């Protein structure tokens, strides 16, 4: 039976009580305790900085050339916090409630409440670090609203909130490097977890420049390696984002929680052709002002501007009058897919819908004319002024769209389509963020914890930083307090020898296949299987087929992949091969999980389980649990269930109508 170690007591008091009673490590002992951190995005960098500040000896690893490159940097829209600066009725409880509801009642109450509690501290901390959040003329912080909520609680820095937050954490991390508290290893990839007597005690890494394998000891190991959306090949993730670190941990005994929960983001730039290597997100904030529509006529090939107003179907506003274009991501994505599948799609591929700013431009233009006291002005002036306002708000996103598509979104509506964006699943962790392997923690997107079956906009940054700055510094002490008598274990220990030998053998095996298919081509094939059969909509038959196809692909990969170059050099193809091999195995588990979860919830939509109106239909009686998968052998996993108990919130059918 999985023990989530949720503290007893009232929901609002749990975290306070925990903090007051958790074991502490005295400063002299902290200096002797070594902590390994894998990944330096928001969760990893903030954890490395916070733990370094506390006096632990930290070693941090990233595969990029600098910790500042981690993909947290690409988050555009913002970060939520229950500050209620706008006096619009926000509170810790409301943020907690929205997150639970947004996650379709598949997350843990205690974790989510803690997240909402520390959200305000994150903003304070980031401001103190010099994160240049958007401000009002009075010098105070500005907020905006984001999908799935009715209050303005999102803090932002233009369209680059993730970048600014990451740079804040990165700078805090580099400060600790300068102070000697953190050793930073860039262009290093973790390839194995080392366990001794059942506890996580270190990792094997590969230096991606020289190809050498290295052993690193730690009293505890923190995985902060991000999401695994690249299992779909095409996603909004960075090219290097991968599952390898958590997959290695999973195969060493860490349970994998809810692998099938994948978030498909509704507003991405559509695919243009087979050459496509990644998908680009257009911030969700665009839905604050843009209106989404398709033609009312099937297969309408007219240009957008030639379609008169009465022949346009603003389907989100029609279906969800209360939230309109601001419904949560999973709802918006499915609605777009539904329209395109029904033959209403636009663009050459017919796999896109319009995101139109014409109305917003007119509205802002008129407001601007009023502000400037211009009285009656002609339509052209209003349009011009409206475009200026829109440019001010979304200029960088519009520019990006134009660079990629060659179309001017001020003149014609954007074409958008959903794309894989975030993975709510990840390593199963308890309340302390510890996995099922003692001493191994998972933070940020790579754990399964806070978002249930669907993440709300502007919550990923919040969770990454909450875990790193405000949760792990407390919870890790509870474990390390009992480790103070353990001296650093020399890396000549047989467990390290064995782990390194295993890594070496695997790399050699990969290099010796010398087959005929490129890594990239096989990754693409995996992505296609996953997108077609384990994507936005899933069904039992498709998933069963997918499992077979993935198993076949795995066999093919290990007998026919072609990797150029040698082991002991800078060899990106080899790096990629190792990652794709892990994605293939993960893909299988995702399909198994999706098949097992015979209900629809959040980002997991099983076609067999929907309401008459096509909304997700949960089966709380049977599936109110976290699926935690234990790896047993190739193609074999054992399901453990952590029941979800709702003491405070009463699960209902989500309605955004």
């Amino acid at each position, binding site marked *: 039976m999985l023990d989530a170690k949720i503290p007893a007591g009232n929901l609002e008091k749990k975290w306070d009580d925990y903090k007051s009673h958790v074991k502490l490590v005295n400063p002299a002992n902290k200096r002797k305790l070594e902590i390994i951190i894998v990944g330096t995005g928001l969760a990893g960098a903030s954890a490395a900085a916070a733990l370094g500040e506390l006096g632990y000896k930290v070693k941090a690893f990233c595969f990029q050339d600098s910790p500042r490159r981690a993909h947290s940097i690409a988050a555009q829209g913002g970060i939520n916090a229950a500050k209620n600066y706008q006096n619009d009725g926000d509170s810790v409880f409301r943020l907690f409630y929205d997150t639970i509801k947004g996650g379709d009642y598949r997350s843990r109450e205690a974790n989510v409440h803690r997240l909402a509690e520390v959200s305000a501290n994150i903003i304070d901390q980031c401001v103190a670090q010099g994160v240049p959040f958007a401000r009002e003329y009075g010098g105070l912080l500005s907020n905006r609203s984001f999908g799935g909520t009715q209050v303005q609680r999102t803090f932002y820095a233009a369209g680059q909130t993730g970048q600014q937050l990451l740079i804040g954490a990165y700078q805090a991390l580099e400060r600790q490097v300068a102070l000697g508290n953190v050793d930073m290893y860039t262009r290093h990839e973790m390839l194995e977890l080392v366990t001794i007597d059942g506890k996580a005690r270190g990792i094997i890494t590969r230096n991606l420049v020289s190809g050498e394998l290295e052993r690193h000891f730690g009293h505890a190991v923190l995985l902060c390696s991000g999401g695994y959306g690249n299992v779909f090949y095409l996603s909004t993730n960075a090219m290097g984002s991968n599952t390898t670190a958590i997959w290695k941990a999973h195969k060493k005994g860490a349970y994998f929680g809810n692998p099938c929960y994948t978030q498909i983001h509704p507003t991405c730039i559509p695919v243009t052709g087979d050459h496509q290597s990644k998908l680009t997100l257009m911030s969700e904030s665009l839905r604050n002002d843009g209106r989404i529509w398709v033609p009312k006529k099937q297969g309408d090939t007219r240009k957008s501007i030639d379609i008169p107003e009465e022949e346009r179907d603003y389907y989100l506003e029609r279906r969800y009058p209360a939230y309109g274009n601001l419904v949560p991501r999973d709802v918006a994505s499915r609605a777009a897919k539904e329209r395109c599948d029904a033959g209403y799609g636009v663009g050459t591929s017919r796999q896109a819908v319009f995101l139109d700013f014409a109305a917003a431009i007119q509205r802002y233009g008129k407001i601007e004319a009023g502000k400037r006291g211009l009285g009656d002005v002609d339509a052209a002036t209003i349009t011009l002024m409206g475009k200026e306002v829109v440019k001010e708000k979304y200029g960088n996103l519009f520019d990006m769209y134009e660079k990629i598509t060659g179309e001017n979104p001020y003149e014609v509506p954007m074409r958008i389509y959903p794309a894989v964006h975030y993975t709510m699943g990840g390593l199963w962790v308890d309340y302390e963020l510890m996995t099922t392997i003692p001493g191994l923690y998972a933070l940020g997107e790579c754990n399964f914890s806070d978002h249930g079956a669907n993440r709300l906009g502007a919550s990923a940054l919040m969770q990454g930083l909450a875990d790193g700055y*405000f949760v792990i510094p407390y919870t890790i002490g509870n474990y390390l307090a009992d480790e103070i008598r353990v001296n650093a274990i020399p890396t000549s220990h047989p467990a390290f020898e064995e782990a390194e030998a295993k890594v070496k053998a695997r790399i050699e095996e990969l290099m010796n296949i010398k087959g005929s298919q490129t890594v990239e081509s096989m990754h693409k094939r995996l992505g296609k299987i996953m997108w077609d059969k384990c994507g936005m909509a899933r069904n039992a038959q498709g998933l069963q087929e997918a499992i077979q196809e993935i198993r076949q692909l795995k066999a093919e990969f290990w007998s026919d992949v072609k990797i150029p170059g040698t082991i002991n050099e800078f060899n990106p193809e080899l790096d990629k091969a190792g990652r794709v091999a892990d994605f293939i195995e993960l893909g299988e588990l995702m399909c198994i999980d999706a098949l097992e979860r015979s209900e629809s919830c959040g980002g997991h939509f099983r076609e067999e389980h929907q309401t008459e109106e096509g909304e997700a239909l949960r089966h709380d009686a049977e599936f109110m649990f976290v699926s935690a998968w234990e790896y047993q052998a190739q193609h074999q996993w054992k399901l453990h269930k952590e029941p979800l108990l709702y003491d405070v919130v009463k699960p209902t059918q989500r309605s955004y109508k």
Partner: protein
Amino acid sequence: MEHYNMNLTLKVWRQPNKTSDGKFETYQVKNISSEMSFLEMFDVLNEQLVMEGRDPIAFDHDCREGICGMCSMFINGRPHGPWHATTTCQLHMRAFKDGDTIVVEPWRANGFPVIKDLVTDRTSFDRIIQAGGFISVNTGNAVDGNAIPIEKDHADASFAAAACIACGACVAACKNASASLFLSAKVAHLGLLPQGYPEKKNRVLSMVSQMDKEGFGSCTFTGACEAVCPKEISITNISRMHKDYLFAGLSSEK
């Protein structure tokens, strides 16, 4: 926008590792769609090379949406290629036409040694940040986010400087291989905020000192950095950094 296909000749710098000599190699790529990104065109070339049993071209890239700062190609004599305010990964093949020859080189600067082919080592930037590119505030020390109002103009100017993605295009373009634009963006980002004020003097002095150690030149205000910066960081930040340095140096008691 009309789509078209093109055939191109690529001259690419190849260098097996840090210590070896490199040289240019010429490649032909065919049927490149104008809708591809520049890096997708390189993907096509690399797939071709792998299938031919040749070593694919190593190049840095990650987010492919213009924000991580990893991509770094010197294309036809310009960092990140011909488009204004664009990273290599956001450059699309519409910028080229059938029959073009494209010369691709790595960033060239002593502060950025080549690791392989088009990949350079930019850890010097991390060390410059370590020298003082931060605000010394431990986690949990912070006061309420709204406790100190910040003049909007300063907040905006700070943000504009903080938009730097540390790609190194400024160094690549500068005839002196100076890292002044990168460094000054950080000095301005933090120095313009009240939170960064207490460390303002020490920050600029030690960051400049580190820049010297890393092998970057002085700024002679040619403006090339500003012209190629994908995030349009203004060269006025460098003047601001010089001012801070001057005041800090003169008022230092050591």
